[in-house]
């Protein structure tokens, strides 16, 4: 059940590069990463790509396959047509190191800035008591395998280098949300922090991050939107605060969104399918094109972006 298939793989480094064509054998049941490994063992021994687990657990093998941000170890060849050319390019939001490997240090920097879990000072190790229902909300976010596909796809930084300073991205919004919902975390300003320091206000709830998440984390609905809700005075009344930690499940989540930077952005599907555009990528890729910041207009997330330049005209 093996056949030759056409692959186009971006090869190069920060000085430039282009798509190269390969004809490569593909066997039944294989995923894109298997094909890349076969190329390494045959035609392209120095083809750079990251991987570890080959089972969708480590989040190392993120790349863009036919323009879609995917885990290559979980993208089966059978999902493509028999004569379809498979085009593989590196994540676009991060600087290329070589071939399919990008510099994702942006994410680690943002992780380092997000304030850590603040344990209750008076509870001894071994005495932590939490109910399953209360930990489940945070557990959803802790499923994150840090593939950074959501970061890659978010229009706020995808083609806007200038926003990276002020914007932590969906991965770190859910980290803040996870701690906000942690039954025993003692910091009370996670939401405020997300607004003031992580740039939550840039997010206009296009949900592209949720769409690409291989762990199916409901990043927007369960993480970002609840973080955007502001409960007035919640912070200043310890009793109310305690109540909110314990009873929050019973509350109806507020969906009206007020952010510091934008007037309002309503998470309606009309926005997504109507004004919001998925076609974000320019057709040719010169040096990084700078466009207006998302906070000034309507965001575009290339969940289904067009292909990267095929002309090799210098990759950023």
């Amino acid at each position, binding site marked *: 059940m093996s056949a030759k298939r056409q692959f186009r793989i971006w090869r190069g480094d920060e000085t430039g590069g282009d798509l190269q064509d390969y004809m490569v054998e593909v066997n039944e*049941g294989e995923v894109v990463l298997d094909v890349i490994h076969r190329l390494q063992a045959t035609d392209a021994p120095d083809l*750079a790509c*990251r991987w*570890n*687990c080959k089972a969708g657990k480590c989040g190392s093998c993120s790349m863009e396959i036919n323009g879609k941000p995917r885990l290559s170890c979980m993208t089966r060849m059978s999902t493509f047509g028999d004569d379809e050319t498979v085009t593989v390019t590196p994540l676009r939001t991060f600087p290329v190191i*070589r071939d399919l490997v990008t510099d994702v240090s942006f994410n680690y920097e943002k992780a380092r800035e997000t304030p850590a879990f603040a344990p209750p000072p008076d509870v001894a*190790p071994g005495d932590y008591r*939490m109910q399953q229902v209360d930990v489940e909300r945070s557990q959803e976010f802790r499923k994150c395998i840090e593939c950074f596909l959501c970061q890659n796809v978010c229009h706020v930084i995808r083609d806007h280098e200038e926003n990276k300073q002020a914007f932590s991205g969906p991965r770190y919004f859910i980290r803040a949300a996870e701690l906000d919902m942690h039954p025993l975390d003692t910091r009370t300003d996670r939401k405020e922090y997300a607004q003031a320091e992580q740039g939550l206000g840039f997010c206009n709830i296009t949900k592209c991050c949720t769409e690409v998440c291989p762990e199916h984390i409901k990043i927007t609905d369960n993480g970002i939107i609840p973080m955007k809700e502001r409960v007035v005075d919640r912070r200043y009344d310890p009793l109310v605060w305690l109540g909110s930690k314990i009873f929050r499940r019973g509350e109806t989540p507020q969906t009206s969104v007020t952010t510091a930077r934008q007037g309002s952005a309503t998470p309606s599907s009309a926005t997504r399918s109507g004004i919001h555009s998925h076609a974000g990528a320019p057709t040719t890729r010169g040096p990084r094109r700078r466009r207006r910041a998302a906070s000034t207009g309507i965001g575009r997330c290339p969940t289904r972006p067009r292909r990267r330049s095929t002309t090799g005209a210098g990759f950023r």
Partner: protein
Amino acid sequence: MTTTTRIERHHYDVVVIGAGGAGLRAAIEARLAGKKTAIISKSLFGKAHTVMAEGGAAAAMGNVNSRDNWQVHFRDTMRGGKFLNNFRMAELHAKESPQRIWELETYGALFDRTKDGKISQRNFGGHEYPRLAHVGDRTGLELIRTLQQKIVSLQQEDHREHGSYDARIKVFSETTITELLLDGDRVAGAFGYYRESGEFILFEAPAVVLATGGVGRSYKVTSNSWEYTGDGHALALRAGATLINMEFLQFHPTGMVWPPSVKGILVTESVRGDGGVLKNSEGKRFMFDYVPDVFRNQYAETEEEADRWYTDPDNNRRPPELLPRDEVARAINSEVKAGRGSPAGGVFLDIASRRSADEIRRRLPSMYHQFKELADVDITAEPMEVGPTCHYVMGGVEVDPDSGAAFGHVRGLFAAGEVSGGMHGSNRLGGNSLSDLLVFGKRAGGHAASYADGLAARPKVAVDAVEAAVETALAPLQRDTGESPYTLQQDLQAVMGDLVGIIRREGELADALVRLAELRERVAKVSAVGGRRYNPGWHLALDLRNMLVVSECTAKAALERQESRGGHTREDYPAMEPKWRQVNLVCALDGDTVQLTRKPLPKMRPELIGLFDRAELAKYLTDEELADFDALVADAGEADNR
């Protein structure tokens, strides 16, 4: 030579090689002890093998069954390892695991809960009571992320105090260490390269903790990633340390067998812990036919009893599907050989007919996705096909049980986690690795810190050693006459898989050694095309020599040990031999050659051996040892009467 002057140099008190559970826990401890600490890893931060662990971390917290305690855990661990374990390590592990797990909660971990709000614990093979703290089937992810986040929190403290996140603990990701550097018999530093740039980097440090994980990439069918090339094992050998128990490899009974490209990927034991059963092509639950004598009393004899155990474990014996892994792997192997295998050459693992679809999706979410997405199999509706896969190496650096300091003639070298040996004896119980990482990671990090404190003067790195390391590292790129590293790896995997696999024979092992010697010549001449920047071919070329020396250790020790025990099965010596239980096989390097010596196992302390009953010990001990045991019991009896 001018190269050395251009090499980036760093000074640390403690360098931890490896960013899995063991490495991160060690680094936390060293940093808490006030040492300037570096963490080095071949992959990105948070991607080490530990992230893949599924089932859970074993710790006798007694949350689900209050009868559990460290003594029971200790007994299970010794049994699982067929009494070849270093008893002191098994003891420390059983005693300290609960604290190490609880500590994770103070770092922010969120384990699944019991009804009364404690950490939930699940059943696993070889564990008498539900003992594995878990988060669904992604426990390793929780563990590594929690430790990663604890390190971030320490860095935030340092940032507040010193103005820099990296002031006292820094992560060097995608950096591979290729050599340890010595000053006489003392560790002086570590040398390696940045994968990204191919540039070299030198760490000067008096104490090094090895936490590099395992060796599985020497096998084709494995659950292990590209990182598992035995680097730490090889680095230790070359630095003058010794390895023990290298003949013992764990073949996990349930790896995927179809499609071929995913062959070897792990199917967690939790599937069986949560009720899944193994069947052959005739639909028979064959494990009942494979309960060995030593375990006869603890396992159910009928399907009815086995099924009752899930709800009433106090009055029934456990299902034989939950025997230790070596037993289950051998049983599957025999069924397939006898022609009762599944179409793809495995057996059937069935949870669909045993639990509701909802429950399966809730308790085993990543297994559900893994099969759905990689094999088009809906595990809530149909059985999985599974077969043995190379999973874990019990053997590793021979260490002092309390401190993790390496034996042999080197000082300042410590090891923890999968790269260390002894703790698991001849076979590791599922869930005992994650807790091992925490217990011995902490110990190794702490002892490395106090070793560094106790030094009057810092060992010095010798320039010629650095030059030699540079030369060795660049050689494959400068040669264009040798073979491809990928071809060599395939050939090595073929030798190990075919001749040093799950069932071993004298002739084949001897043959393997001849072939490994040939491979050694070829590996010495390997060529890598391309440049120094992120070049996986070059990286593999450098890993090969480590894989090779570790494989030689395994083959040599496997040939020497003329018995079957745990992860070492000899077709020509099928029985367990009490005399061999008293022997550890120790590997050391003499020049380039692996030297094997026999070393007596440390003797269990009276109060520990007293935890077992005589009937059980009789299955493992020699007559003299039993006589000693009887004398001990008689003494204790007399003491009672006095």
